[in-house]
């Protein structure tokens, strides 16, 4: 069954390249997504048995992130249909678009030929597959291979719009992430070195084995290993100051890809760090990791605050907000206690909310043909539903009740205070406030007011339903945390040394 979860995306990906008919390929996209979703949903009922000699197994953490991934992918797949239809239309009426966007510097946005649909859909599936492997892998080496593979699978997606900026974004993404991942590889080796003393030559980098005998490992090497893994996977996760690729990639890729990058990929990298922390906790070095995580976390929030304030590009805004939230996750894990639980819960909330926001941003982009904040006005008059979702998403992402983000952020704060990290808690809260102000300034300016023409434009339901569903889920998590999810969260938190 686990194998099925892994293989479905790869097979459908290959199929996507073979299929000629556009309609069939699109059907395949949604179908494959649904199958994967169904399989993962089934995994909640009966936890799948480990596969490939225990290399692949779903523990709570893996299941959690896998579920987020597949959920977002399904939403993105449905959204992608409307996106593809739209971009077709975009080319047929490109003249009209020029006239529309002749005002702003981004006029050339839609005038590039996009990559062939097969590439998009195929790579989407490979992306999903590699991420599934990341979530399921119980072997550090395999984990590394999979994470690097996600980079390679997603690079073409970022370069979907074939124009200069997206090319630049893809290049930076590829280069920076590859370097980061390379460092993570060194981290893996260092862990292996740490095992040497224990006659562990024969010991593969298998989680269970590592955790079992972690106590014996040489601690300096473990520490070094963690630092390398943190920097390596942290680059991918988007912790400042390693986040540099993130705003470019997110702003230049198609919206549903941005949604997946921000909502799913970053989590997978986070999972890499969590695995490392698992080992160090087992070795009794949990304390050592906390300082690092908190430090990078706060730094990330500060960086995000700096660039969110007066941000001129709303997709970059969302990207920096992802940096902020990755920082929050790091802090949550760093402070430990219920903070860990809060962090994992926040990972769920953030992924849903951010994916929703990126999809909505896609709708805005489709109408206004520009990512420039100053050019988007009177959203609530032009696209009422989208505007409502946009504002709801804004309040959700800034942690206002009754959304799930509020409870998770509050839980992290409680964790910080409970563990005696008063100053961390206060700094965290201050940065949250700062970012709220900065984001409010930008987002409200877009939603309110009047633009030159105020008649409301059509909003295809395919482009509305996915974000709406995601938003509804966040709302639901804010007022009701299902038992099953709570159990998984608790289990995962226990795994990585929280509680």
């Amino acid at each position, binding site marked *: 069954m686990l194998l099925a979860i892994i293989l479905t995306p790869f097979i459908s990906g290959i199929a996507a390249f073979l299929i000629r008919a556009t309609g069939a390929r699109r059907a395949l996209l949604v179908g494959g997504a649904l199958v994967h979703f169904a399989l993962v949903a089934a995994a909640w009922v009966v936890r799948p048995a480990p596969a490939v000699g225990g290399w692949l197994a779903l523990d709570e953490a893996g299941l959690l992130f896998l579920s987020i991934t597949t959920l977002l992918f399904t939403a993105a797949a449905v959204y992608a249909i409307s996106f593809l239809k739209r971009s077709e239309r975009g080319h047929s009426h490109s003249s009209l678009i020029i006239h529309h966007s002749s005002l702003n510097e981004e006029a050339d946005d839609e005038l590039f030929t996009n990559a062939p649909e097969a590439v998009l859909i195929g790579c989407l599936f490979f992306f999903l597959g590699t991420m599934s492997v990341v979530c399921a892998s119980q072997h550090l080496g395999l984990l590394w291979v999979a994470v690097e593979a996600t980079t390679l699978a997603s690079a073409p997606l970022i370069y979907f719009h074939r124009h200069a900026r997206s090319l630049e974004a893809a290049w930076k993404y590829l280069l920076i992430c590859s370097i980061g991942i390379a460092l993570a590889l060194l981290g893996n080796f260092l862990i292996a070195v740490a095992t040497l003393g224990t006659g562990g030559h024969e010991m593969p980098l298998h989680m269970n084995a590592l955790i079992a005998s972690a106590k014996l490992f040489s601690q*300096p090497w473990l520490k070094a290993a963690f630092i390398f893994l943190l920097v390596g996977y942290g680059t991918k996760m988007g912790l400042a100051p*390693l986040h540099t690729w993130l705003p470019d990639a997110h702003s230049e890729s198609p919206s549903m890809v941005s949604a997946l990058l921000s909502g799913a990929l970053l989590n997978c990298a986070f999972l890499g760090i969590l695995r490392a922390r698992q080992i160090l906790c087992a070795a009794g070095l949990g304390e050592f990791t906390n300082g690092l995580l908190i430090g990078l976390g706060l730094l990330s929030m500060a960086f995000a605050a700096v660039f969110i304030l007066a941000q001129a590009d709303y997709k970059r805004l969302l990207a920096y907000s992802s940096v902020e939230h990755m920082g929050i996750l790091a802090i949550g894990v760093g402070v430990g206690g219920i903070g860990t639980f*809060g962090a994992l*819960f926040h990972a769920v909330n953030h992924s849903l909310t951010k994916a929703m926001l990126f999809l909505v941003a896609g709708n805005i982009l489709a109408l206004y043909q520009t990512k420039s904040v100053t050019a988007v006005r009177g959203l609530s008059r032009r696209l009422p539903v989208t505007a409502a979702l946009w504002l709801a998403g804004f309040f959700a992402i800034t942690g206002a009740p009754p959304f799930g983000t509020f409870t998770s952020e509050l839980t992290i*704060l409680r964790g910080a205070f409970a563990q005696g990290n008063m100053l961390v*808690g206060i700094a965290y809260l201050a940065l949250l406030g700062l970012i709220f102000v900065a984001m409010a300034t930008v987002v409200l300016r877009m939603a309110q007011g009047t633009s030159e023409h105020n008649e409301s434009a059509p909003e295809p339901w395919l482009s509305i339903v996915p974000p709406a569903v995601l938003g509804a889920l966040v709302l639901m998590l804010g007022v009701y945390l299902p038992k099953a999810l709570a159990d998984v969260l608790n289990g995962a938190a226990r795994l990585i040394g929280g509680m």
Partner: protein
Amino acid sequence: MSLIIAAILVFAAAGLAALPLRRSPKNASLVGACGAVIGAVLGIGGACGILFSGAAEQIRLNWAVPGGSFYCEADAISAFFLLPVLGLVALAAVYGVGYLHGRERSLAGHWFFYNVLAASMALVIIARNGVLFISAWEVMSVASFFLVTIDDEHERVRRAGWTYLVATHLGTAFLFVMFVMLGNASGSMDFDKFSAPAGTAGILFVLALIGFGTKAGLVPLHVWLPEAHPAAPSHVSAVMSGVMIKTGIYGIVRMLVVLGAPAPWWGGVLVAMGIASGILGVMFALAQHDLKRLLAYHSVENIGIITMGLGLGVLGRATNSPAIAALGFAGALLHTINHAVFKGLLFLGAGSVQHAAHTLDIERLGGLMKRMPLTGLTFLIAAAAICGLPPLNGFASEFLVYMSSLSAVSGSHAGAAVGAIAALALIGGLAAACFTKAFGIVFLGEPRTESGAGAHDPSLSMRVPMVTLAALCVVIGATAPLIVSAMAPVLEPLCGTRAGVDAALIQTTISMAWVVIGGFILVAVAIALALYRRRLLRSREVGETGTWDCGYARPTARMQYSASSFAQPITDFFQSVLRTRKHINRPKGLFPAGASLKTHTDDTFTEGIWRPIFCGFGRMFARLHWLQAGSVHLYILYIAITLIVLLIWKLA
């Protein structure tokens, strides 16, 4: 209790029901307003039940949210605060139907958020769990934000909304810390488990004061009020200024109960902030020409009076003299209700003026008394009441505060008491100045521009709430002794003793009874004199002529005293605080073509404290943008540096 919960559910249901009615504003108004009224009636029923029975009711359900539990309790205090909140919500909703009538833009959102606001306010007042409380609190802020920004096509409104949202959100952050500290100390977010860990009570109090003070509008945290209230539609301003900011007062009161025996300096701080808010609020009010902005500043002033009362109460509690405590708290709580009544009425009146004259610029109005007599009458009553003039309700509550400070004068904290009395006296005088200006210039004399000329009293649905509130001003004033004597159960948890409270109340009730008697004498004598005058004049000729203008032949409306000139001596006197800017165009030459005087008074705190801070952040961050300079080399360098720094930090 069940009734109150039912009320909240009705609000929620009505809000959701109004949401889909985007096409027809009329039905949306109907649904929304009906829901608000029905819910309010239910809730008031429940609250009254609790006040009469005196028994607190509670429900405690599990809530599948970390740290959360659905734990609500309606005790006397909650019930007491619910009354004005729900009452004004209902009346303002009725008013809103008429006020919003004829707008072509969808009202679905408006009525949705209006009912959400109502529900969340009620929930805030009965919530007894930290997470539940903050959730309700934030929902309240967000809902009111959307209500404020309904006319978001105006830049002014957008700025106001932003200011409000930012202020309230940052204020809430302090509440986060407070609740988290309490929760971690007691291991539960439920209020009844709360106990201030040793030595932190003071910190918690300060956090509560800042967090709730921002919502209540205490100087210098008041900056959002004068922006938000004028921007919102009038019935929303009425609700926000009348009752929503009172949830801040409620929060402080609730925390005083939770934190238990206070330290004397808390009282001192409260009194000091109260005095500052009261005096500065009324000063700034005097300098305004926008009617609603003026009223907003008066909310700051009245919150100041309430806070003074609370402070005296705390002082009394801290020095265990129940008389001071009981009177102080009684004054504060009663003034909460009174202010809800007359400030709500004033905002509704301002709304009617705007509706009729299409401007709120006092300088452009005038002579509305003849054109909209009912609005004028109700506004006059409210104005007299807010100035604390007997025999109306405003005097009753201020009298209580006076009495509290009078009994404190002979105590150990006489300084605070004397300060409070002096401040109250000064506030009273300035408030009188301000409202003679507001009422006199707007409603009396002749119209200064044609905008006021065509005005007329508003539709029935707008008149009914105004009349009701005006009647309440009189009735509460006349029945104040009864009300106060019935307040003992509300005051007991605050003062910590029942016997002392009863004793103090009995004492004061006698005085207040005398006040009422005085009021009746006043009315009787006035009527008698009026009748006497009529009898005298019946047989004689009563002439009609133009106003005597000291021999000037052709007085015109533009020669009337204007609001600015009326307030000018006082604003000049306080110039050092107000920093009023004047744009004078003096008459020149022998035959001056024209002359003009414009004055504008910004909020000294916005300009002096908050704007510099925010701009400072902006500049600082703008200077850091090179960090993301776009060069991939730089980015790779970051990775290397981070790696090395971390290695050195952790391993070397």
